[in-house]
């Protein structure tokens, strides 16, 4: 039996059909010998798929060369625009989180078993969605089980002026009406506004302030003078120090102090199993 005959017997029916089709289309051309064994039939496509997944996985998990070098504030004209070098180890970076205190804006009890600290940008559409998810979480769990802490992380380069102004406005609301006013203002803001820096902050901020019963003139003065700029900057600084590279950026703290980073607008379906496990432990 010559080589050609060997090849022919090892071909599968579909491959010989293809060859026949191709030779029928081009009667004057000689078909090229292709030796396809059962092994290569399976290994080649599998190898391509596996290689693709490995390469993509490598990109995904390598973190890249520049992932740890992040800027504290994207506005280069800001005097505080220093570069911060968070720890190379992501888990170590999480330990840089400022302790949750009574000064924080918390939904739920401060001493709840699970605490989720969110660093949010009011103009980020995904923060708006995560805000709904977190409201669902605090609605469905007892105050003693889950607490939600809200901190500011306005991304100046993506949402210039407006995100920061809104962060300042929420602080001004809290200055007049306490934590309750803070949450009323924040919830209403996310409910009303379109995100992506499309909010008419000059109109919406005083409007919400009026709706929730604040003194609007006092509120406007507070926002205009950036009375709470230091508080907002401190939150931004802390978000970066803990490894935040985008918004929403959250950290879940378990009963034993274990910290789990939650990047992006996680769906409720992903949060729930982790919360349940932490509550059981």
């Amino acid at each position, binding site marked *: 039996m010559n080589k050609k005959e060997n090849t022919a017997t090892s071909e599968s029916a*579909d*491959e010989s059909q*293809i*060859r026949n*089709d*191709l*030779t029928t289309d081009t009667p004057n*051309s*000689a*078909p*090229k010998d*292709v030796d396809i064994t059962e092994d290569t*039939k*399976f290994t*080649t*496509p599998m190898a*391509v*798929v596996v290689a*693709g*997944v490995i390469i*993509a996985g490598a*990109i*995904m998990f390598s*973190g*890249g060369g*520049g*992932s740890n*070098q*992040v*800027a504290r504030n*994207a506005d280069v004209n800001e005097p505080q625009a220093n570069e911060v070098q968070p720890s190379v180890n992501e*888990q170590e970076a999480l330990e840089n989180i400022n302790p949750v205190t009574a000064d924080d804006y918390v939904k739920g009890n401060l001493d709840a078993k699970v605490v989720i600290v969110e660093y949010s940008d009011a103009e980020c*559409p*995904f923060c708006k969605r995560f805000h709904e998810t977190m409201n669902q979480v605090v609605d469905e769990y007892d105050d003693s089980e889950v607490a939600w802490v809200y901190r500011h992380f306005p*991304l100046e*380069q*993506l949402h210039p002026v407006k995100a920061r102004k809104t962060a300042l406005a929420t602080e001004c609301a809290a200055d007049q009406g306490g934590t309750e006013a803070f949450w009323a203002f924040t919830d209403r803001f996310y409910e009303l506004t379109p995100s*992506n820096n499309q909010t008419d902050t000059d109109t919406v901020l005083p409007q919400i302030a009026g709706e929730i019963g604040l003194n609007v003139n006092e509120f406007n003065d507070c926002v205009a003078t950036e009375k709470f700029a230091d508080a907002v900057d401190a939150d931004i600084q802390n978000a970066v120090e803990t490894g935040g*590279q*985008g*918004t*929403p950026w959250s950290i879940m703290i378990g009963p*034993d102090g*274990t910290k*789990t*980073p*939650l*990047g*992006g*607008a*996680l*769906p409720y*379906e*992903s*949060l729930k*199993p*982790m919360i*349940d*496990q*932490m509550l059981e432990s």
Partner: protein
Amino acid sequence: MKFVTEIISNKISWLVFVMSTWAILTIIVFMPHVAMLRSLAVSNSFTIATKAQTIVGLYASLWTNFDFVSSLTIITLSLLFGVNLVLITWLFRVKKSASLKSLFSSGSGTLFGLLGVGCAACGSIALSSLLPFITASGLIAFLPLDGVELQLMAIALLSYSCYRLIVEIKKPMVCPI
């Protein structure tokens, strides 16, 4: 277009299509959650069942972590990637070769797709894994469509790659002079 019927009736082609589409969709959807996934992988606080539930639940982030246009783009990209791989593997099985042009457009399309992922996700993007955050968000802010351009470019490249591969498959197998 008889080869289309051949490919569709081939079980391996379906396996390659489903696996590659699922793989790229998973990578794209999970990419913004890499930090959490890394943390879960080494965590002793969660059981394997909890980790699995959390990871499966992440597929819902296709709707929470991306806007409507991005979600559609991601699904289109994943399907095109699957078709590309089916055509490439078919070409390799039948002809044992594929032109560099097709492979390049396929590879670059996939790369653009990955880089473009979540560009609208306020910094939670693959780009920020590769570049310093300030550079990545600066680049996105510079793009008029907030990075959707990269995804559209990926779709164009993968479509072109499909076209190139179909042309190659249809070419007669001859001994070159």
